[in-house]
């Protein structure tokens, strides 16, 4: 088990601030990083991997800065970037062999591991096909396989389910859940359902800040009083759409059932339904100031 301590972390790119100031500690478990596009998730993940140098602050792994650990830290890592690059002319097995070579795994160990992982991601039958013939979902699965090659203790997955169909998403969740509890798994997404059931802790990001942090239950409990449900007319629904954040809208004959995120009661007949992580995401995305 390793501890990643992020202190005062900031990153800017040519006048634009991607990460403002982040302080958090990551230990073993699954951490879900939720945020919209441009929130800073990918930048944070790249800094955790050591690909980007922070503009300020530091990231410590077990008390030592990751830049000083160098290869020692990278050996603990498995990383799947959002835009996963690969050699199109390589077959699946050859590509995994190449990644195993980069991870300095001996050949015989690598072969066994590749066979196991191809089985895990259900690509054993396609192992000798060129990657350029693979679909987007299959490429992602190869990406997950390469991230797991060295049995990493810290697994960083950037939008791992983008491009996957629902079946593949479920398969991916099961893979993550099956990994040892002693690992630190950080995965970013803007799809709430991908991490709702597997994350031990959630971090909500917005404009380079972490706006909320805690277990799913804690985060959901924090927004319970801002989630409303009401049955209104179509006209009322239309006016409320311009005024409040609408989490869900469902037509029921002549009326409309609205799920609203608001700090004030939107209408007289509004009640509090059971809140969900998606409600929390919408609240922290639209209504919470850093």
């Amino acid at each position, binding site marked *: 088990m390793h501890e990643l301590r992020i202190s005062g972390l900031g990153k800017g790119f040519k006048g634009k601030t991607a990460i403002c100031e982040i302080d958090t500690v990551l230990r073993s478990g699954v951490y879900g990083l939720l945020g919209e596009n441009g929130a800073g998730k990918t930048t944070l993940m790249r800094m955790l991997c050591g*690909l980007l140098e922070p503009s300020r602050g530091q990231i410590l792994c077990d008390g030592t800065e990751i830049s000083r650990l160098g290869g020692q830290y990278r050996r603990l890592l498995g990383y799947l970037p959002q835009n996963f690059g690969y050699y199109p002319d390589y077959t699946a097995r050859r590509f995994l062999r*190449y*990644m195993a070579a*980069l991870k*300095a795994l001996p050949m015989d*160990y690598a072969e066994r591991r590749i066979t196991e992982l191809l089985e895990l991601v259900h690509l054993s039958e396609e192992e000798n096909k060129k990657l350029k013939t693979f679909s987007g979902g299959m490429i992602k699965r190869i990406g997950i396989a390469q991230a797991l090659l060295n*049995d990493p203790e810290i697994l960083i997955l950037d939008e791992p389910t983008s491009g996957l169909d629902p079946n593949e998403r479920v398969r991916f969740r099961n893979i993550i859940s099956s990994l040892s509890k002693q690992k630190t798994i950080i995965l970013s997404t803007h799809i709430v359902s991908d991490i709702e059931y597997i994350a031990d802790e959630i971090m909500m990001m917005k404009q380079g800040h972490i706006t909320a942090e805690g277990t799913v239950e804690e985060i959901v409990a924090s927004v319970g009083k801002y989630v409303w449900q009401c049955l209104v007319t179509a006209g009322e629904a239309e006016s409320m759409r311009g005024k409040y954040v609408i989490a869900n809208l469902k037509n029921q004959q002549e009326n409309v059932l609205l799920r609203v995120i608001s700090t004030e009661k939107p209408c007289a007949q509004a009640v509090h339904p059971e809140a969900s992580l998606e409600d929390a995401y919408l609240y922290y995305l639209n209504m919470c100031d850093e």
Partner: protein
Amino acid sequence: MDSKAIKDMFRTCETDENFKKYLSSEKKSAAIQALKSETARKTIVPRASKLELIRNQLWFMDKRNMAFQLLCFLLVILLYTAFGQRLGSNDIFTVGAIAAALFSIFAALTFSRDEACGIREVAGVCCFNNRQICVLQMVLHTSINMMILAGMILIIGSNADRSMYEVGIYILVPFLVTGCLLYAVLLSGAGKCGNAVLSAIGMFMAAVFAAMSSVRKIYEQAAMGVWVIILVIGALFYITETVLLIRRVEKGETLCMN
């Protein structure tokens, strides 16, 4: 407290009978058992030796490039062994200049391939970072190129009425000048337009050197000083650009795809 003081303290504890009274043998056994379980649970991932690392990099280098280089070299050998005596004094160097210019394409193609595929973002988080991989690739390419160029220089030198030193300069200059131009294209970011552009530039330079070598005077003794100056400047630029390329791959901002 310094290390010696800490060691002395532990030595005192080991011999102090009063201290031993407070040591719980049960807790000690439990701690040792917990350590053993943790050690047994932890998966030990084996690591490849340095020789395996180099062998792997050689194995995964683009074989088509290497095959093409070897083919060029074999053609040069064939040409000179079969027709060497019949070639004119300038023609001897024409073939060598074309081949040397073409050889410099391959290192650039490897670099360009990695950029185009966007593999550096995932490759840079492995045991070796991008700088180390790039350096290893450059060293391997340069070693292969130098061996082949040395072979060419020997063959051409044995057919030409010049010293090996002069022949070496006539061969290295096209190699370095073409390489400098290709690396400059890569550094400018225009290299992302792909292998076809880089290959076209390399072939264009080969054609330029072929055309130049038809001018009798450039291989005369009087022009040797100019060749040496171009060689030195070319070598300096080549080394500088290689260092800049390696520094470029280190910078996360440029290698990450978006």
